[in-house]
């Protein structure tokens, strides 16, 4: 029994030891470096996916190597146990305690952001309004009946769809059967008229899978579906993500709109782009600043304000940042905002302060102690 206790204590000691910290940090360094180099060839998203958001990496397809999530989890255990141990120590160094508490907060904050934060974007032309932002790369099948200012939209997450899948749009009873779904598709038009062509707004007659883009935001999804209404004949539909307008069809006496689009996130307010402005450095093509004048309408209260680089809009837990812009030759301007919703947003701010304060405390205390000894 006592042997078991000994072993347990030894395991605990090892799990809380700085040796394990060194191993974790070293593996993390390897991952960080490897992922950075990997980005050059495969892009940021692939690197995040393979190295930073993963628990396990298979090198060459079969050699397992711990992923960043795994290493961070071990570090979290290591750090927590170390801090628990500290409680039982007679003399605790205040600086060391602060540093490690701060790092613990930072890791937890990172986890909250990783699992709960929402990131999307919103592109508006001058004069346009919106009350929903769009995902960067996730797609959805959206269905609604009436087309107007207010719509009741039913949506299905499109990315997991496989040929043969059947999904039902809630209360409408409308069922879609997937014939093809490509995360990145190329659309083709038949040069000869087809007798039984699927319904498509742009006259697309077939789809082909394309190689996934380097960054998933560059993918354009495409789907070939058969829509089975509760009563009446089924309708074959081709949806291509490049076309923002929906396919319209009638089934069971109802008029439907069906679209394949970037997943939408409803916003609790309406944003309208009033004016977009950019300023160049004199005599150059280098942008000095760009800013968007927007009108925000929350619960019937309107206000006008400016979103610019380094000056975001914060409203109801959402933050809108000036991300980029597009300008056509005819002067039409679009402004793109990054939209973020993150409950853990302030945690890194606080933990950074705690860690840095702890470090300064620790090293200055050390300096003072040594100076005192030297004089003594």
């Amino acid at each position: 029994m006592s042997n078991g206790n000994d072993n347990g204590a030894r395991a605990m000691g090892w799990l809380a030891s700085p040796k394990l910290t060194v191993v974790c940090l070293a593996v993390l360094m390897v991952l960080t470096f490897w992922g950075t180099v990997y980005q050059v060839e495969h892009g940021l998203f692939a690197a995040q996916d393979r190295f930073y958001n993963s628990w396990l990496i298979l090198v060459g397809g079969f050699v397992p190597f711990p992923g960043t999530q795994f290493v961070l989890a071990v570090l979290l255990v290591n750090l927590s146990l170390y801090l628990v141990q500290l409680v039982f120590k007679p003399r605790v160094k205040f600086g060391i305690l602060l540093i490690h508490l701060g790092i613990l907060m930072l890791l937890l904050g990172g986890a909250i952001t990783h699992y709960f934060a929402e990131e999307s974007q919103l592109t508006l032309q001058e004069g346009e309004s919106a009350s929903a932002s769009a995902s960067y790369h996730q797609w959805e099948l959206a269905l609604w009946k009436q087309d107007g200012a207010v719509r009741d939209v039913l949506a299905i997450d499109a990315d997991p769809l496989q040929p043969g899948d059947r999904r039902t749009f809630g209360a409408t009873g409308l069922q879609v059967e997937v014939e093809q779904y490509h995360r990145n598709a190329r659309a083709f038009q038949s040069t000869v008229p087809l007798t039984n062509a699927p319904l498509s707004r742009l006259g697309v007659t077939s789809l082909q899978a394309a190689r996934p883009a380097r960054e998933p935001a560059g993918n354009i999804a495409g789907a070939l579906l058969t829509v089975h209404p509760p009563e009446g004949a089924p309708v074959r539909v081709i949806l291509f993500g490049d076309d923002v307008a929906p396919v319209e069809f009638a089934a069971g006496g109802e008029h439907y709109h069906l679209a394949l689009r970037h997943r939408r996130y409803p916003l609790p307010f309406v944003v309208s782009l009033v004016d977009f402005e950019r300023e160049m450095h004199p005599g150059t093509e280098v942008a000095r600043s760009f800013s968007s004048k927007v009108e925000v309408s929350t619960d019937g209260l309107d206000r006008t304000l400016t979103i610019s680089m380094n000056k975001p809009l914060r409203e109801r837990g959402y933050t809108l940042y000036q991300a980029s812009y597009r300008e056509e030759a005819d002067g039409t301007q679009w402004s793109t905002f990054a939209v973020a919703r993150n409950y853990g947003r302030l945690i890194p701010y606080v933990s950074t302060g705690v860690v840095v304060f702890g470090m300064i405390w620790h090293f200055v205390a050390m300096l003072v102690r040594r100076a005192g000894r030297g004089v003594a």
Partner: protein
Amino acid sequence: MTFTRGTSRGMRAAGCALAVILLATAACAEVADLSAFGRLPVQAGGRVMPVDSHARHLLLQFSGRSSHQREPAVNWLARVVFAPEAAATQKVFLVNHPEVLEALDVKPDGRRYSFAQLRDTSEKLRALAEAAQQHEEDDRSPVEKEFLRLYANLAAYAQLTFSFQFALPHPDFAVSNAAVRARLQMPDDAAPPSFLDVYQRAQGFSAEVQALAGTKPETWNDEQAELFRLSSALFQWSQFYRGLPIALLPMQAHGQEQWVSPWDLLGFGFLDDASRREIGWLQDLARAYGSSRQVDFNLAAHNLERSVVARAQPSRGLTHLKTELLYNRLQPFYRAKLFYGLAFLVCLVGMMGRGGARDSVTGAPWLVGSDRSPITVHRSPSFLRRAAVVGVLLALVPHTAGIVWRMMIMGRPPMTNLYATFLFVAWIAVLLGLAIEWFQRNSLGTLLASAGGLALLMVSARFADQGDTMGVVVAVLDSNFWLSTHVVTITMGYAGCMAAGLAGHVYLLQAIRRPEDDPGLRATAGAVYGLTAFGLIFSFLGTMLGGVWADQSWGRFWGWDPKENGALLIVLWCSILFHARVARMIGPRGFAVGAVLGVIVVLMAWIGINLLGVGLHSYGFTSGLARGLALSIVFEVLFVLVTYPLAKKSGDIPGPKSQVPG
């Protein structure tokens, strides 16, 4: 790349440079003192600067140097614009790749070539550059990049040679008809008039020429034919010489100020009295230069400067014209290098002479040793130690002044590009060395300060052509509190780790040379430890502030982006060292080795990351940087491999016993 915009005009201009140079008849006499010309304000690279700076930037861009054959850049520029034929033989075009010479069929003759040597190849170079242009930037080979770079430089140079043609006599405007000459009140001297001479008199005959347009040339008399010829020459020249450098004159249009070249001002026709006078002074400048009249040259330059400064809207560049001139003239970083070098030599001499002089040190606060007794260290002879400290302090004065001047001129924190970060890292490293000297008083700090300052400033000079120009920065990098603090702190982190690495070298060498000098080793180990701690604190803070900036700017704190990862690597490496030390996995010797290897980590984060990215447009820059980086890494690894086994374990002292694991 400006090349695409300027290609067709550049091609045309390059082709025509030959013609101009053959036709130009001005004498090769010149003015000796160009300082008045150098003081003129000009808009370039998105800001207003003195011509002196602009000349340096152009020369750096062409030749990779900021002076030509010991002559200030402004003398070279004056020759290019006022007497192009005399400048054509000066070797200012840097060719980085021998294959370029081979392709152009130019006989290899050093690294730099003159316009005269290259102008005959302009057609071939143009074809090669256009072919290179067809490829995506990432896919271009180093030789193709060099074609493009050289071609862009030749085109820019050719444009410069045209910038003052409006003021120089030209046969196109020679008036043979005596009646016309009398009517236009042209003097009867031998030199033909310039474009400007005729332009200023064109009001008097424009209506007449317009009336001629509907009639047949056979019906014109000699006077009418001459006037028509002059008028069409004026029109052709003003069409041809558009969009040329140098933007010397401010112009108010639509409520906004725009700086334009004299050509464009004449072409737009927005001439008020003041700008008319200014163009006249520009012509005076060109003529006085050609006939070596120094007093007239200075007078015209002074009048022009006063008028332009009074007329232009206030801007940072205009306010700091004098500061920038001072910065250019004093070359503060060059002076700093000299003094660091001297201090370093004095340190070395002091170390050679460190025979038996031992001293007890009572105030060495960050020594790692656990015993409480005062420790004994070797000391260099007192006067040499002091002399070295004085040398470092003397170097620090111009070093600091240079950084402050750059901040004043740019209105930004001192890190706007790689060049500027080197200057700042060197500065912080020197301050850290001085701090160590203050505590330890054993020349270690002075050694670190002088060697660090000298080495980093010498490396920075390699990037001067990229960074000394103080260009503008894109919107997202524009002045922002979080960004500024992030860049400053992360750079301080770099400096701490670099200085720690330097001290690590000293420790390892010391452990080989004097393994018995335990107190000396302990003192150095303490310095390595303290500097690494400094590096850790600031790189952690800098990394986090980078996250704060990213969160403030686009809503995500951390995204595993290469630059973030680079900073993280430094933090991780320093943390590993401290934890390994606490876990007794390494002693002072291992810690010193870690600090030396930390230099590699810093270089990777600081420079290596930039090389991963795309968009570094100059072959010489990228390959030179990559080679330098690779060489430094190889050197550090070899250094560790050689010194670690030699540094006897007997030189090690045990780590602190009282340390709490963490």
